[in-house]
């Protein structure tokens, strides 16, 4: 019965530090960071601000994970042309 309140309190708890990176700066850099992450870099170590933003911003997180998922599929050859057999 307190579901709404719990959601509200959880949402308020998500405040992160002042001056942290915002959505627009994130979006503008995602291609660079996704490439770094896809090649095995530890983003938490090298870009803590970005990771902090992704943790509180589901929209940016969704987009970043999508880019990463496509890059990884590409690296694994999953997006290559199927052999023409027909």
């Amino acid at each position, binding site marked *: *019965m*307190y579901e*709404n*309140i*719990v*959601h*509200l*309190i*959880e*949402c*308020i*708890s*998500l*405040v992160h530090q002042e001056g942290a990176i*915002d*959505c*627009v700066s994130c*979006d503008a850099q*995602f*291609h*660079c960071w*996704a*490439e770094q992450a896809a090649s095995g870099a530890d983003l938490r170590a090298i870009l803590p601000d970005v990771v902090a933003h992704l943790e509180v*911003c*589901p*929209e940016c997180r*969704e*987009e970043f*994970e*999508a*880019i990463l*998922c*496509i*890059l990884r*599929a*590409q690296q694994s050859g*999953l*997006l290559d*042309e199927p052999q023409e057999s027909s």
Partner: protein
Amino acid sequence: MTDRSNDEWLADLRADGDMQAEAINDLKHRLDRGIYYYLSRERSDLSGLSETELQHMADDMAQDSVLRVLENLDSFRGDSQFTTWAIRIAVRVAISDLRRARYRDFSLDDLTADGDFLPASANPVAGTKPPSPERAAEQADVLDKIREALADVLTERQFQALYAVGVKGVSIDAVAVELGTNRNALYKLLHDARRKLRQHFEDEGLSMNYMLRLFQE
């Protein structure tokens, strides 16, 4: 499909005639495969769609993405593979489309029209174990404080945004459209709203952890 360097991509996409047509076609094909992979593997919310429907969706998104890439070619700074940069644009196009579709009928008025979203009192729902009288009194007291804070601390706009995003889980993009603003401005507005509320509760001696514990089963 030809593998191109970043410079080759830029030159071919800016070229005329067949050279450009071929590059556009290659780019579209590449983005199409990436988007289709994402839609079919990562989006459980689309699992009801057939392979053909997903393919159509991916085709349309790839088409729009290519146009967006061409419009923005001058802003590519060469700080990644060209195709990664194009994938970033395509993901933005695809996800924005999906969000728009999901919240097509969403209106802030509907959300807040259902009146007071906080329970009027701390009466337990039938079938659940009633809290102890002390706990019930404590919950009622904190509920009052939350209600006051929402009314006193937040602007109407901040309340609407926080309610839609924080309580109802509506996407920031959809709420931004509804409020006639953009994602970044809304993100800042939400950030201010959260910070003000949190400060207010802390001034009242109510920590987030305490309140969460109080209202969780």
